[in-house]
């Protein structure tokens, strides 16, 4: 199995992993790879791209609207893609507004919800709305049939599993005691034997007015239950669909790798397809070789003798003193870097036992914020 084979056989790719490992960049790279090498219409749905990357992809200003990466942009990096690359950014607020418009049974409910003072506060936070929205939009673009492949970057969550749980939580919320309790009339709540003590406590602590405000909002919200629940179930089904695959991204540092192991196991446990693990920003593996550490030792000794420094200085037209300093530092510090590389190799081996393939992306010398940077990653992924 290669990346090409994986991307060619799937319609949806969910890119997940812990924060800061480069999910957005990898999602964009995989979409780019498919658009360049395989053709078809490919969409990358990003969540929170770095500004320069967003600019390079032409997203940012337009919210939910998908934009096509222009032919000129590809020309500038000397690439003729076989297909089309489209990009869109997830906008939670606009996404929620869309959902309300879609599921509201009538204009009255729609307008009351959208203008409710609690609405914005609640949608931005409750039941992991970011996570749900990402899943929801994946469903939306997939159902539209407009793309051959959709690659989704998942939101930075406290827990990477939150993304997977988001649809079932949405369903659970509509069936919850909370909603039932909140949406019965206040008076019957007060006289209901089962909920009376709770009502009294809640009233005393939070004030009945606040509870009424919340209840009002959820009564409106409940009117949309049918649409929301049906949709959340569809979204959940999509996660286990044979056309969907997951790619777990991680660096080989301790904490992200630990979370990646956990996430990969959980995906398998849930019978979701784990297509690949991407090890991002890894040190070249050759750094762990015995030849390299031997050479570092010998270089440290040779740096002390004047001839090597003089020869190098002459070849580079540099100061011999500077060169001697550099060679000494480079040789003695090699051990530090090799140590990191060794540690990474150990963690990589653990990840490799969990997925059908591990793709390495070597640490690059600069940040990735344009198409040529993404293409460098594509080269790594397809190696």
């Amino acid at each position, binding site marked *: 199995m290669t990346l090409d084979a994986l991307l060619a056989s799937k319609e949806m790719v969910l890119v997940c992993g812990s924060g800061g490992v480069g999910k957005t960049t990898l999602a964009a790279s995989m979409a780019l790879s498919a658009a360049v090498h395989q053709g078809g219409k490919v969409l990358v749905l990003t969540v929170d791209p770095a500004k320069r990357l967003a600019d390079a992809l032409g997203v940012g200003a337009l919210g939910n609207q998908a934009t096509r990466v222009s032919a000129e942009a590809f020309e500038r990096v000397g690439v003729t893609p076989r297909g089309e690359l489209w990009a869109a950014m997830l906008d939670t607020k606009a996404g929620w507004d869309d959902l309300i418009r879609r599921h509201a049974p009538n204009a009255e409910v729609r307008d009351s919800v959208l203008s409710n003072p609690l609405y914005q506060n*609640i949608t931005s936070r409750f039941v992991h709305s970011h996570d749900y929205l990402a899943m929801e939009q994946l469903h939306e673009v997939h159902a539209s049939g407009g793309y051959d492949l959709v690659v989704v970057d998942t939101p930075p969550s406290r827990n990477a599993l939150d993304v997977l749980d988001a649809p079932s939580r949405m369903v659970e919320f509509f069936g919850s005691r909370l909603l039932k309790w909140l949406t019965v009339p206040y008076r019957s709540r007060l006289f209901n034997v089962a909920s009376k003590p709770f009502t009294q406590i809640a009233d*005393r602590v939070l004030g009945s007015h606040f509870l009424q405000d919340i209840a009002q909002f959820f009564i409106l919200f409940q009117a949309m239950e049918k649409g929301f629940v049906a949709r959340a179930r569809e979204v959940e089904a999509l996660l286990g669909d044979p056309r969907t695959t997951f790619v777990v991204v991680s660096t080989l540092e301790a904490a992200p790798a630990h979370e990646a192991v956990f996430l990969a196991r959980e995906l398998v446990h849930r019978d979701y397809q784990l297509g690949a693990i991407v090890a991002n920003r890894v040190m*070249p593996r050759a750094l762990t070789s015995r030849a390299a550490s031997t050479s570092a030792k010998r270089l440290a000794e040779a740096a002390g003798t004047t001839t090597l420094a003089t020869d190098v200085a002459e070849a580079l037209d540099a100061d011999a003193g500077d060169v001697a300093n550099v060679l000494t530092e480079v040789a003695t510090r090699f051990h530090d870097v090799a140590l990191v590389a060794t540690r990474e190799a150990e963690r990589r081996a653990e990840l490799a036992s969990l997925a059908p393939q591990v793709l390495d992306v070597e640490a690059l010398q600069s940040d990735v914020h344009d198409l040529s940077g993404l293409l460098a990653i594509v080269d790594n992924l397809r190696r």
Partner: protein
Amino acid sequence: MDLLDRQLIFVTGKGGVGKTSVAAALGLLAARSGRHTLVCEMDGKGALGPALDTVALEFEPRALGDGLSGMAMNTEDALREYLRLFVRLPLVARIGPLARTFDFVADAAPGVKEILGVGKLAYEVRERHYDIVIVDAEASGHIVAQVAAPRVISELVQVGMVRDQTRWMLDILEDPTRTGIVVVTTPEEMPIAETIDLLGRLDAQTGVAPVAVVANRVLPALFDRKESDVVARLDQVEDLLAGAAGPGVREVVVAAQLTEARRAVGAGHLERLRGALPDALPVLYVPELFTRATGRRVVALVAEALGQELDVQ
């Protein structure tokens, strides 16, 4: 005033930058300086316990030795304690199933879950159970909702006990001599962009003061400009070097160039960070630790670096 002279410190930052290590290290430093110290994990990841070489922390604070105690926030336990302390509910056991319902309310209603957490922390400060409480807080995406909860609640809730309690919470949280936020970042593009963005949102939406930025995993500058230029061209003299040190020298050069390039990019990001911060806000530098160690040994190294920056032993 010194960072550790405050009573409540929230440590936040983008996911993956090492905020747990920094929070644990500040905890060690505070405890070592003789302060009775509580470290508290907020995000339920269970990382703070292992960072201090102990099992997962629980709501009930546990002594970790040398004047340091640790706990993990849990909304349901915080609610139980709240009801016991303030509502004086005689039979706490009776609210068992109700606590679960309340958890749902807390999930949906703005600020309720947050205020239980932040309220518990402020309560520990108010009661002076500890000299300092150091919080391994939510990541930068969630911290504003956390520390702004008392404000949000006091605006949304017109009457009731919670509203009255937001007053003393705000007195503690919005006093920069008592409460401060430490933002952890690494010298990389996104964490730094998020740090700058977070400082703006803290200022706009909360009254809680940022007191320091910690730049974590900073590669040391080993070379001046001329030397750095030599490093960048070492691959041109690979044959010469291989003649003296063997064929493996190629990897030695690759390692040096990669590290030096990363350092230079990071230095650019740090410069941008410094330029975007108010002059009064200090940046504390913690070097990249090339170590195989984990847990408390790493935290001790971070503490040592932070101790030098803060001028405490």
